[in-house]
């Protein structure tokens, strides 16, 4: 853990809340794999290995003013912004009550206006220009709003990354783009996705600040995002942040990662798991004890059990609703 002067390292309450959200994300994700393997849900795409950067980044944002445009792994981001455990299982089970899409989209396609989470799709990187658009609108409306958008390192090769960041740079817009570099794009390692040493090196081409951080270090991530947030609200423009960790699971429940990487590689990376490191750090600091941790685990487990039961028993959308909301009607926004 990089040694820090900033008080967050001393802020027990915040650190413990961060840990709780990371742990919740991890446990929710693990449960979904169980449900998938037991045949209850057809698909899961994971946050495992990225919870630390996601939650730490979200903590540096303003839940009342900012908008987040997450990608499919961002359980940590959306949990912090207000997606409930129950809602997460409702979307996993594709039930009518799911606030993300009413069961219309696959799991991992988040969106909930009430929580300032912008609806996302499957084609990667389309959210990057959207984030620029939110930032542009906020600037026009003179709001202290920042748009926070995430994507994977492979997705940073899409044209929309280039076009969206360039637009934000030219107009000095309050956008924070965080590339979650987990070192794989499905089977393709980062060195076959990009030839640059750092994704953050792309920032200079857009006239914006680029920062690379250890994604397993919550304090480093928090401070990088906080700094970017300050500059954004002060009209100093956008920032590109690259947070590096490792994808601990296969790409999704449809993937077999042993066809392109070794068990040894994965095991040795597991040892660097940011969540475990953070837990150790909290123990060392004396902020976390076995007792608190067990209690935390127990509460989370119960929360997940209840959410699973609720979602499992919730109804699907009526077949008669299939044609609803193609276009707006009187009374919609």
């Amino acid at each position: 853990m990089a040694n820090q002067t900033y008080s967050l390292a001393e802020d027990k309450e915040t650190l413990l809340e961060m840990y709780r959200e990371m742990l919740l994300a991890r446990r929710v994700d693990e449960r979904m794999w169980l449900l998938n393997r037991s045949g209850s849900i057809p698909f899961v795409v994971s946050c495992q290995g990225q919870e630390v950067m996601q939650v730490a980044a979200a903590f540096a944002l303003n839940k009342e003013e900012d908008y987040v445009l997450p990608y499919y792994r961002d359980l940590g981001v959306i949990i912090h912004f207000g997606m409930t455990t129950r809602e997460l299982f409702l979307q996993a089970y594709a039930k009518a009550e799911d606030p993300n899409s009413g069961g219309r989209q696959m799991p991992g396609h988040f969106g909930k206006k009430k929580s300032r989470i912008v609806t996302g799709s499957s084609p990667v990187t389309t959210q990057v220009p959207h984030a620029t658009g939110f930032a542009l609108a906020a600037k026009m409306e003179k709001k202290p709003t920042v748009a926070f958008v995430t994507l994977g390192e492979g997705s940073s090769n899409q044209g929309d990354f280039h076009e969206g960041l360039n637009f934000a740079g030219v107009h000095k817009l309050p956008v924070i783009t965080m590339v979650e570099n987990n070192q794989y794009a499905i089977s393709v390692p980062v060195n076959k996705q990009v030839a640059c040493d750092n994704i953050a090196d792309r920032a200079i081409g857009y006239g914006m600040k680029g920062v690379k951080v250890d994604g397993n270090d919550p304090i480093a991530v928090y401070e990088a995002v906080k700094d970017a947030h300050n500059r954004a609200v002060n009209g100093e423009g956008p920032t590109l942040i690259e947070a590096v960790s490792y994808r601990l699971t296969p790409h999704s429940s449809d993937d077999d990662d042993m066809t392109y990487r070794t068990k040894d590689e994965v095991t040795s990376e597991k040892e660097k798991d940011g969540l475990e490191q953070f837990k150790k750090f909290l123990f060392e600091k004396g902020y976390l004890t076995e007792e608190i941790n067990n209690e935390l685990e127990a509460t989370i487990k119960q929360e997940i059990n209840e959410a699973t039961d609720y979602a499992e028993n919730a109804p699907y959308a009526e077949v008669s609703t299939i044609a609803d909301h193609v276009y707006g009607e009187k009374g919609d926004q």
Partner: protein
Amino acid sequence: MAVLTYIQAVNQALKEEMEKDEKVFVLGEDVGKRGGVFLATAGLYEQFGEERVMDTPLAESAIAGVGIGAAMYGMRPVAEMQFADFIMPAVNQIISEAARIRYRSNNDWNSPITIRAPYGGGVHGALYHSQSIEAIFANQPGLKVVMPSSPYDVKGLLKAAIRDDDPVLFLEHKKAYRLLKEEVPEEDYVLPIGKANTVRDGDDVTVITYGLCVHFAKQAAEKLEQEGINTEILDLRTVYPLDKEAIIKAASKTGKVLLVTEDNKEGSIIGEVAAIISENCMFDLDAPIRRLAGPDVPAMPYAPTLEKEFMMNPEKIEQAIRDLAEF
């Protein structure tokens, strides 16, 4: 009432909507000081300033994508594609995003963006400054595609598009910009998106078309009137989703249907019009449906001889109507 050209009607609609609602803003290439390469935004930069009349970097996917983001936030962006031919890099943002945002979020989010683009030929624009692109988009639920045929319609339909709570692709025929003039009311009015318009009554032959071809069809119909052939003309106005009722009514009325487009024939939107007719009122027809369209070549060539050969014109339509009348 003042006489306005088609492009002046575009300009006036934008000006009035921007005065009326400060959430309306324009973004695109050269829309600022330059006023747009066709002057659609002339004077707006001076009146509303750089922030609401925004020159963007040369990147259509960003023009659409940033507009979609601003629209989801609650703004009313009007994005300009400098030429319809250059909308291609933005197809992913328009189809995967704008058209699906409301449905995929189960009505939680929507994206009220208007995307304007000059399409069509007859202006020495060659392969990449003459294309009809509506067929690419006229199969995407969630999107509306509007193609006005006159200055009056431009003003009323563009205002409706900007106020629409869903994404609208607004295609303006660039040859019509200065060719078409008519009286346009000063006052504010909107025309309904999704409804076709009968621009001429007749009981011998029905012509169903849209955009600049409506003008050509009118010219043909006037000449044929002297021969005693009376032509009904239905202007689709919105080419997606189509006004099925109006199409069925117009086709049934005369029993002889000519469908006209400047686009290539195979896969053009008039194929869908023919399908609607053949499903719903085939037995009311006294002649096979006739389609008049551009040849199935990538787009119109630059050489004046070849461009002329490709383009629709009143003579081609007149002949086709006569053939049908005599059938």
